[in-house]
């Protein structure tokens, strides 16, 4: 579904990707993991056409992502949904209007049909009864479920989740984990989940990519990646405080630093 080939990217003199290669299989839940700041969300920006890689290519459904190409890019985006970490609900619209927003903007469907479609999607995420609430009245978990309903309301072929588990209580997290898996299977979606939550990520993944040092440092089915002996992979998957990714931020010698310049 998505092919990322030899992507290189950096900014402010910092290299984020130094030849990234990965393939997202159709119809599966692919989880992309890695420590904070390793470029996971940047990868989603490349796939969604919001950011252009310095070198390399990104293909979606066989076609090169048309960066900066207005209408062609929008045509491609109509086939993909995205769930943002902040949910990104439109704060002046009710839950119902938020989910109806893509339908009103992208289609000429009659109001009666829009109502049915929105209620169906809200029922899927369990929030049909919250349709009249404003986003400010929702908990973090509810807001993310509304955003999920909005992301699937146009029935896209693929959906991208940017850190969907961050800041949720265990119940809300369980609900989101269940929804990602069930929606993927029931609607025949392709899902890309970007997260640093190992347990939740592995529980729904068909395939895992682990990013680090600007490249893929491990990939495979979740059980395989969990048991990897490769040091970087092992450190991340088992949450070890020290290892190839050092505990200390690079600094001058400790004793010399304490003694000071004098």
């Amino acid at each position, binding site marked *: 579904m998505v092919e990322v080939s030899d992507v290189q990217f950096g900014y402010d003199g910092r290299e984020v990707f130094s030849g990234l290669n990965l393939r997202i299989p159709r119809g599966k839940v692919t989880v992309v993991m890695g420590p904070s700041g390793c470029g996971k969300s940047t990868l989603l920006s490349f796939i*969604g056409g*919001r950011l252009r890689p310095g070198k390399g290519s990104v293909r979606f459904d066989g076609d090169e992502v048309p960066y900066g190409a207005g209408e062609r890019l*929008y*045509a491609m*985006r*109509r086939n*993909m*949904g*995205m769930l*943002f*970490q*902040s949910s*990104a*609900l*439109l*704060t002046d619209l009710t839950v119902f209007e938020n989910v109806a*927003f*893509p339908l009103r*903007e*992208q289609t000429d469907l009659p109001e009666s049909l829009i109502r049915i479609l929105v209620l169906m999607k809200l029922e899927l995420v369990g929030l049909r009864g919250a349709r009249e609430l404003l986003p400010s009245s929702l908990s973090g978990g509810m807001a993310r479920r509304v*955003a999920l309903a*909005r992301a699937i309301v*146009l029935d896209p072929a693929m959906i991208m989740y940017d850190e969907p588990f961050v800041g949720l209580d265990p119940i809300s997290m369980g609900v989101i984990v269940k929804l990602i898996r069930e929606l993927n299977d029931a609607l025949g979606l392709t899902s890309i989940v970007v997260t640093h939550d190992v347990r939740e990520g592995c529980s729904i993944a068909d395939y895992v990519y682990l990013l680090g040092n600007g490249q893929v440092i491990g990939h495979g089915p979740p059980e395989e990646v969990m048991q990897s002996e490769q040091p970087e992979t092992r450190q991340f998957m088992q949450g070890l405080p020290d290892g190839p990714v050092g505990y200390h931020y690079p600094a001058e010698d400790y004793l010399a630093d304490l003694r000071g310049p004098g």
Partner: protein
Amino acid sequence: MPWIQQLGRTGIDFVSRLGHAVVFLLHALSGAFRCLPRFDLVVQQLYSIGVLTVLIILVSGFFVGMVLGMQGYYQLVNFSAESSLGLVVALFLVRELGPVLAALLFAGRAGSALTAEIGLMKATEQLSAMEMMAVDPMKRVIGPRFVAGIIALPLLAAMMSAIGILGGYLMGHGQFGVDSGVYWSSMNEGVDLVDDVLNGIIKSIVFGFVVTWIALFEGYDAIPTSEGVSRATTRTVVTSSLAVLGGDFILTALMFGGL
């Protein structure tokens, strides 16, 4: 020589930012034209940036008119020319104070609100979400606000001038006993529809364009943090106030100065 470096950097930053603002303007104008078929979006914005600014405009305009009536009378009566009070008040308001003060108040009330709204939409990824839903924020968010700003300010300036003239009348007639008929007829004879009223309207259209452009650009360009949005809001008020006052000088010179 660090100060030369600093000067150069400031100059480059200014030109670069101006370039960004012009590119933004082109996108915003394109969005404004494309949003016109959905005029309901413009009407919504007319309410939030226009109607909600009416009260502050009317109250301010009334006080300004009363002050003009008072000061005008005190000066004119020295030359036994108090019969021209209506004309003086009207010309001050229609040519200058109506468009300029309305624009300054508009920048403070509606401009700052626009910047904060767009900046927060950016900070909370609402604009990014729209782009990912294949909805162009320039057409859906920026365009309607731009059109509404350009429509709203001339109407607000007209209201300010009208209420100011009324305030001047209340002071002139009620307080100082200037004849009611003389007050209105001097205005009727002395105020020219093209030279005075039309030029005032042109000024307020230009100010509406500039203030809305600055407010929207600052919001769209804001660093997406609470501090970034706060700074952008301040910049909107400061920059648009300076632009209005500087622009007023240029427009006045062109319209009335024979330049």
